[in-house]
């Protein structure tokens, strides 16, 4: 038995996977003051549901997979360690200057961002390595020792070190690391070239200081959680979900906690990839996870989950870059709690402000006064006020109507129904735009992809989203409401290794390339031998980061072989680059040579049989079908049949207009669309072409 726990902002989700592939879902509130308690709570809920004691349940567990927003929350709330930054002399402002850039040029309300480490805790190290790895100025140790004394005085709790070109020649960084270990043995240190050996000093420095700042906190948390699970009876292995859609042993994450930053949402595409294959027979999918405040979109492109280097903590240009690849996820402020409002020029907006968990939508009756997407869904009949969360919460239809009337319908001169439909239309459009932006950036054609709807609110407008995108098929997995936790169960142990390797296809030194690749393989094998010893299968994939001469943004080009034996291997790599450039940017330059900047290797150790998690359809109960009035933006009010998900056996179909309900989600089936229950338990919806009157354009942004 394996447990996957995803600690989100509002709920802690648990998925238990049994040896036969069957699974069960549980939810319990998150306890931010002590997240481990929320984890034990949800496990207790599961134990109670099975009628066993908690220790008996935990004793059956082989593996505990955990995703958490703890690291990112610590950063957002400023609760990380007091961290110092050590940098090359002459370059103290790497974290202050960053890489420039800004959005909204006439908006002077947002101040210039503070550096992740203040200048007062930044110290210059007298040394310099040149671009070829040559020592321009040797490391002077006496001033470093003075700095160390000062760090002790300042009671610094963590230290990030990033020296220029440490990726090419790490001697100085390593020596500084030794001095710190010797003189400040209790203070955790991150060396940039060890953590993230990548070009561009801001990104590498940012990685190092963010990582260092999380070490004290995450070490305590992970050790504490592991101890409490063990005390409660768990004897298995504990692994953490990472930002690159893999898992790592908790001890490894405690050493490099930056990997846990995107720990939660990164798992959704892993689950999406599985269901696209099982239910949609497709290796290309768009995964849309609808939360309370955001709509997170990610992709699977020919079986692979695209990653991006540019992961921002917070808004681009205003937050901090992690410098790490992470799953490419685009978030827009268009969730169920996003607030609809009208500006003084009479333009309707949805989001980015959210009613959040407190007070929540007006319909929750907990003091909310501003209408949200959820309120609009209720007014339109998408949600059953008596059956929200399986009837655990009653919704206030009249309150929702009144709020929409007051704040949207009257200012715009619309009927309430039309105003509610307009809110949904605009929210749907923002979601479509977010999907367009990420698909076009990654060279994916939405009309050839399957849309996977995750999150409790996914069913409200996913049919409309799919129709606008031209996606022929929409899949709502049975575990859709806990998609990230389900994804954790499907993920591999995974680690990325990188090396700087500068070359051109015109003059590639094959021996040097082979040495770099062999070294990467050795690092991957060390990982596999230690962490992945029990894996069913281990694979190592190699790639070069490459570009045309004078370009600066690299593409990651997978290597067909891990050795360059002859000139034809180089020529093949060059052709692969041309093809990828054409694929992503719609142009290529066949006569040009290709420049290589770095090599990467990813080692994946598969922990489980990939074809499990199929048997799932719960024993069908004979729940009566019902009917209610539902408003569809393109059709007006219609009588829709209401079907309980558990009443749908495998292969059962429902034609729209219809609403399919379960305790975790509500799926609205527009007229013309139809839904079928797949063997896996997923709902597979067939989308009629072009339901909307507005076409999809290329890419997108939020309404402003």
């Amino acid at each position, binding site marked *: 038995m394996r447990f996957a726990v995803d600690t989100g902002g509002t709920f802690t989700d648990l998925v238990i996977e049994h040896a036969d592939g069957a699974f069960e879902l549980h939810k319990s509130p998150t306890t931010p003051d002590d997240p481990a308690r929320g984890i034990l709570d949800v496990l207790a809920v599961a134990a109670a549901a099975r009628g066993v004691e908690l220790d008996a349940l935990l004793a059956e567990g082989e593996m505990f997979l955990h995703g958490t927003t703890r690291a990112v929350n610590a950063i957002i709330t400023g609760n990380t360690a007091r961290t110092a930054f050590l940098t090359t002399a*002459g*370059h*103290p*402002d790497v974290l202050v*200057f*960053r*890489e*420039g*850039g*800004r*959005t*909204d*040029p*006439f*908006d*002077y*309300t947002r*101040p*210039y961002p503070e550096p992740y480490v*203040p*200048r007062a805790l930044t110290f210059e190290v007298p040394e*310099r390595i040149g*671009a*070829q790895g040559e020592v321009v100025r040797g490391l002077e140790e006496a001033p470093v020792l003075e700095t160390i004394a000062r760090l002790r005085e300042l009671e610094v709790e963590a230290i990030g070190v990033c020296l*220029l070109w440490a990726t090419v020649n790490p001697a100085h960084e390593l020596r500084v690391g030794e001095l710190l270990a010797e003189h400040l043995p209790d203070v955790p240190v991150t060396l940039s070239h060890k953590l993230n050996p990548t*070009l*561009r*000093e*801001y990104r590498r420095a940012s990685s190092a200081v963010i990582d260092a700042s999380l070490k004290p906190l995450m070490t305590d948390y992970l050790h504490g959680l592991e101890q409490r699970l063990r005390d409660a009876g768990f004897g298995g292995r504990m692994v953490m979900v990472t930002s690159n859609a893999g898992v790592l042993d908790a001890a490894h994450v405690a050493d490099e906690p930056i990997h846990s930053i995107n720990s939660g949402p990164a798992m959704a595409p892993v689950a999406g990839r599985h269901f696209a294959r099982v239910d949609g027979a497709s290796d290309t999918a768009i995964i849309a996870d609808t939360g309370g405040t955001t709509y997170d979109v990610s992709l699977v492109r020919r079986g692979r989950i695209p990653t991006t280097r540019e992961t921002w903590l917070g808004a681009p240009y205003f937050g901090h870059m992690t410098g790490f690849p992470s799953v490419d996820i685009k978030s827009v402020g268009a969730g169920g709690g996003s607030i609809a409002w009208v500006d003084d*020029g*009479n*333009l*309707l*907006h949805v989001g980015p402000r959210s009613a959040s968990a407190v007070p929540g939508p007006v319909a929750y009756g907990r003091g909310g006064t501003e209408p949200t997407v959820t309120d609009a869904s209720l007014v339109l009949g998408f949600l059953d006020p008596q059956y929200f969360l399986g009837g655990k919460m009653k919704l206030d239809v009249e309150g929702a109507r009144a709020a929409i009337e007051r704040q949207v319908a009257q200012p*715009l001169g619309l*009927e309430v129904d*039309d105003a509610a439909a307009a809110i949904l239309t*605009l929210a749907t*459009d*923002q979601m479509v735009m977010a999907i367009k*932006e990420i698909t076009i950036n990654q060279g994916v054609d939405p009309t050839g992809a399957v849309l996977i709807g995750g999150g409790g609110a996914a069913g409200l407008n996913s049919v409309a989203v799919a129709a606008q995108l031209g996606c022929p098929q929409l899949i709502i997995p049975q575990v859709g409401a806990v998609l990230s936790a389900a994804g954790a169960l499907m993920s591999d142990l995974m680690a990325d290794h990188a090396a700087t390797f500068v070359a051109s296809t015109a003059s590639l030194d094959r021996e040097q390339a082979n040495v770099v690749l062999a070294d990467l393989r050795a690092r991957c094998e060390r990982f596999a031998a230690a962490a992945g010893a029990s894996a069913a299968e281990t694979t190592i994939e190699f790639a070069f980061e490459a570009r*045309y*001469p*004078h*370009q*600066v943004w690299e593409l990651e080009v997978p290597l067909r072989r891990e050795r360059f034996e002859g000139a034809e291997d180089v020529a093949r790599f060059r052709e692969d680059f041309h093809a990828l450039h054409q694929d992503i*940017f*719609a*142009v290529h*330059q066949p006569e*040009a040579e290709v420049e290589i*900047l770095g090599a990467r290797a990813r080692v994946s150790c598969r922990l489980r049989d990939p074809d499990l998690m199929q048997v799932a359809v719960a024993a069908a109960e004979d729940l009566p079908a019902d009917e209610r009035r539902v408003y569809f933006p393109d059709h007006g009010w219609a009588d829709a049949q209401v079907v309980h998900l558990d009443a749908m056996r495998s292969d059962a179909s429902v034609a729209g207009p219809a609403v399919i309900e379960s305790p975790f989600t509500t799926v609205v089936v527009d007229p013309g669309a139809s839904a079928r229950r797949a063997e896996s338990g997923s709902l597979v919806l067939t989308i009629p072409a072009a339901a909307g*009157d*507005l*076409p999809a*354009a*290329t890419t*997108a*942004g939020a*309404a402003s």
Partner: protein
Amino acid sequence: MTAGSVAVPAVDPVRLAVITNRMESIVRAMSNTLFRTARSGVINTGRDFSACIVTREDELLAAAESLPIHVLSGPDLVARYMKRVHPDLRAGDAFLHNSPYEGNSHAADHCLVAPVVDAEGEHHFTVLVKAHLADAGNSRPTSMMMRARDVYQEGALIFPCVKVQEDYEHVEDVLRMCRARIRVPEMWWGDYLAMLGAVRVAERELLALGDELGWDALHRYTRDWFDYSERRMESAIRRLPSGTRTACTAHDPMPVAGAEHGVPIAATVTVDAEAARIEVDLRDNGDCVAAGINTTEATARTAAMIGVLNSLGSEVPVNGGSFRRLQVDLRVNCVAGIPLHPFSCSVATTGIPERIAGAVQLALSQLGPDIGMAEAGGMLPASTSVVSGGDPRRGGAPFIDFLCFGITGGPGHPRGDAWLNFAGGCLGMNARDSVEVAELLHPLRIECNRIVPDTEGAGRHRGAPSNQVEYTPVGATLEFIWSGEGTTNPAAGARGGGAGARGAQRKRGPDGAEVELDAFESTTLAPGETLVSFSAGGGGYGRSTERDPEAVRKDVREGYVSRARAAEVYGVVLDAAGAIDPAATASRRADLLQAAAAADGFAGSPVR
């Protein structure tokens, strides 16, 4: 095609928002294509480019993520000029345009312009990308020739809306000319392809949108969107106090007739809150000068608009609709107006335009509290040189690029302290190179890249400090050419704020001896020699004695301001532990206020 369910109100707000999203996303797709695939560092790192959609009436419709100085006015003029010289527009046409006399900014900004023409041959929109090239074929290896006597000495190839594609095929005759005259032609070709890709992406998407929604609906949309934008502009202007003010600032001296003592720049700004109109008059400025600093019509107008929009807040959509409430008066043959051929406009996006925006901001700031802003520190310090030479690591292969480093200059403003990486008319939208990427691309080393303390324009809200950058060649002899401003005349503060530090540039020999250099100059550096550059600081907003003592304490702790300056200029006295000494601070501030009041008695005019 439409649902037609309910009576649609005169303007459908949902549709308005949705199509606006579509238009902005098309522009973003243009920008992304250009940014990711371009070859010049100035484009693919510095983001020195713009992308926009212009209506068939030649009004700016959408320009997300573009540099403001490129785009507020200019694309409108270019689109109009295109129709004048090519009355018979056809699908598949594309034009190369960089003429400073016909709506462009400076000649180094190449525009690629394509009409969006439907299957019936009707022209509906114009799409345009503009990018600053590392080289434009000038007589010297720089894209900015501050000392150019005229457009002939400047030497750039001028393309007054020249057809480069017909039926989507290259017009090779013209492209061969570019290859023959632009330095490092393969780099130019890569940039050209990136720009072409960007306009074709936009064209394709707009044609798809027209097919789906109908062209009439799209034109109705642009009308509604402009009306909406105009309403937002009206309400923003109505929040300002009415009045007319003139402010004057000055560009650094140039060794040419009429500019020996600097170039005074005056702006008279009239806010009529009741009528919701703003007028900026730039006609009371000198004639064109025999140097590369003359503005173009586009950059003079845009600079005035930037100065105004900087005070109006981000809720006003920036397009032809909101611009209807804004009038800019320009004069022909004026250094801050409409240039006459053959005066050179080689540096028409920096320098004078920055001073125009500054003068407008200073004039607005005289209208009342919490309006206007200080002047920004002059752009293009020596750290932003165009550098050229041979790269010994590549067998001496020639290279040329515009380094995007070390510009700060943000002005203090009513809402807070300056944006650090502001860069004049870029308003911070530009990006910075990475030290490691620059050292990888070019045979040079960046010895230093740091903030210089005590260089900020002091004020209630302080200006950006100066950025010191040092370059030294590695194994090569390199030529650096820069076109800076702000070495003589600092950026003025507003509403009692102090001026930012002046910029400076020096050459340091192997023996450590330093020689001062001009703000616009060139130098050849051999290994062992170093170019030292200091950007100009931005002006402060409001009196320094009004600054929150806590903010001053933090500036001292963070090393932006010394203890001595904190006491001397801000009147904030810190004790040995770095805490505020309230009594000493109160007394020092009282003294400073008294001195300021005395000075105000005869200061009167902001003329510098």
